[in-house]
């Protein structure tokens, strides 16, 4: 299969759950890429060897210093992302980085500057943008199928609450979880978030509250185009991973419902039953995870700009910060303007 095509040589840093999934997608599904090296502090040797990855290490520099490697997939723990981006950019590698790039504007801006300075591509793992259903909704909104956009609703509920040690280093629910929804709102609306009001609660697990986080939230957003949007989040939906999207406008409403493993319907004595939604994000967004890396590799090969950049990560983090502030201060919070006009630069 390989050898005849000029493949893009890729390295992976961080082989936890997400790192392993991306690596397997690269190996099994993306023919234009060859995974040469993987580095991770607790590397699963057997797994990496089984995939036929020649260079396996617990030392990131083995990947960063390999001159054959053109692109790096960063899937290390969240706190290391921005530093690894700087190192990878300095080494001249194109970068795919899982979200979050950082929990604050500073590190993200530095990462953007580092990538720009080094002239490398930097794509961020907002995988939902590559989900065929979400993408289709975004396209039809853009094509005006619902007319002028009046509102969006995003339902994002995890099947079960994460362990507390994850909660503690996650950056909080707005930064770890709702961050996807802020990006989805921007993607679907093709507009910017201007103002947010976030109401949060601890209803799933008191331990999450003790760790200083929330597990349930309703976030309402006012967009630059005038639309009013709603995100709701829960860390525990007993029936599975609940992912639904709606776009309402002057010409109608479009709905993306949950997917399910099979479309069988069972008409039984107790009622009509269908399958539950997939239970994990890996299953629900399987195609999206492959498509986002495919797009990344394609952009690297064709030297075209990536479609989801760190600028999008920056915008999402600004929304997350505003949501956190809104919840803490119990008031609607306006987002800072993306870029203040240059001094004396405006014409009147």
């Amino acid at each position, binding site marked *: 299969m390989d050898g005849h095509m000029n493949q893009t040589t890729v390295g992976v840093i961080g082989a936890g759950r997400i790192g392993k999934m991306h690596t397997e997608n690269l190996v099994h599904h993306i023919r234009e890429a060859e995974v040469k090296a993987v580095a991770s502090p607790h590397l699963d040797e057997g797994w990496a060897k089984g995939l036929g990855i020649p260079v396996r290490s617990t030392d990131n520099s083995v990947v960063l210093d390999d001159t054959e490697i053109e692109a790096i997939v960063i899937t290390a723990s969240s706190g290391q992302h921005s530093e690894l981006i700087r190192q990878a950019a300095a080494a001249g590698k194109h970068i795919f980085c899982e979200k979050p790039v950082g929990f604050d504007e500073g590190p993200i801006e530095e990462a953007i500057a580092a990538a720009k300075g080094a002239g490398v591509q930097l794509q961020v793992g907002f995988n939902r943008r590559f989900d065929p259903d979400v993408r289709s909704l975004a396209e039809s909104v853009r094509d005006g199928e619902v007319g002028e956009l*009046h509102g969006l609703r995003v339902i994002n509920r995890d099947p079960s609450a994460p362990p507390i040690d994850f909660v503690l280093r996650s950056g909080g629910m707005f930064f770890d979880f709702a961050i996807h929804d802020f990006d989805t709102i921007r993607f679907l609306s093709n507009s910017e978030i201007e103002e947010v009001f976030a*109401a949060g609660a601890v209803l799933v697990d008191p331990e999450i509250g003790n760790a200083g986080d929330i597990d*349930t939230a309703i976030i309402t957003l006012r967009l630059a185009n005038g639309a*009013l949007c*709603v995100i*709701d989040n829960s860390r525990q939906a007993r029936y599975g991973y*609940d992912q639904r999207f709606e776009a309402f406008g002057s010409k109608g409403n479009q709905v993306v419902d949950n997917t399910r493993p099979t479309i069988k319907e069972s008409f039984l004595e107790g009622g009509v039953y269908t399958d539950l939604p997939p239970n994990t994000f890996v299953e629900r967004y399987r195609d999206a995870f492959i498509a986002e890396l495919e797009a990344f590799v394609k952009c690297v090969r064709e030297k075209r700009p990536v479609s989801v950049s760190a600028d999008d990560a920056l915008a999402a983090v600004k929304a997350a910060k505003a949501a956190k502030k809104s919840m803490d201060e119990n008031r609607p919070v306006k987002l800072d303007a993306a870029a203040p006009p240059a001094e004396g630069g405006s014409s009147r």
Partner: protein
Amino acid sequence: MNKITVGVVGAGRIGKLHADNLLAMPDVRLKSIADPYLIPDEWSSRGIVPTLDPSDVFNDGEIEAVLVCSPTPTHAEFTEIAARAGKHVFCEKPIALDPDRVRETLDVVEKAGIKLQVGFNRRFDPTFARVRQAVVDGEIGDVHLVKVIARDPSPPPPEYVADSGGMFLDMTIHDFDMVRFLSGSEVEEVQAFGAVLVDPAIGEAGDIDTAVVTLKLANGALAVIENSRKAVFGYDQRLEVFGSEGGVEAYNESPCQVRLRTADGIRAENPLFFFLERYQRSFVVELEAFVASIREDREPPVGGCDGLMSVLIGLAAAQSMAENRPVKVEAP
């Protein structure tokens, strides 16, 4: 069975609807109906005494219960007159837009010792009642989120908007009640975002046509209401309660359940057009419940306090939007 004798005050759209429903109830005798604009023959031909003067209903010693279906500004006064005359009252929502006026009326009702039911008909919709039952039965565990979508098929004329009390008191008031009904909890605080996206004339009349309202409930749950004055595909009435053990959701209902499949696509019917169609059954059930509470001497399922709470939440929402901050709901 000993029939309960009823009079109706107000023969507009909703008064006529209630009168028709009363006529179909075997344990009710609809004796008379009052409205300054009614056409007497329309009613006398059906065995109902028509009158232009509501006092004729209030002063009729045979009448045990009165339905107040007159224009909103007369609700409080007519309820009080009927209560003082010892009649049980079914009053359309809202009793009044001013909470103090509602409180006065509730005082009169309490002193008179009569039964008062307020017309929050949606509680009696079989679909929504089933959602509530799932909550009551613990099928979804503790309530975490309540979500209500309520969109009208087309906006009212701007002159209606000007006298309506604003969208929160005219339209969202049903949804505030629905949040209280479904959650079984009081609303403590609201934050409302509003916008004029449907019709600029509504904005010029000083109202909004699109809103998102976040509500914090006393039991710790969160709720959100989405409103629009215009959904081109019809009356969009959906809701969901999500909890620790799962979720329960009500979808739109259509006039018929068909799928038309052609090369152009697969098409289902739009939702039932508006509230008279969608909530047809609920109007019957709410009156049955009212009559049953009289007959069995029980508290009506939707009382005066429920009417007051929705007004208080609506006022808090209006203030929240005006001041762009969360506003606590005043105590009843």
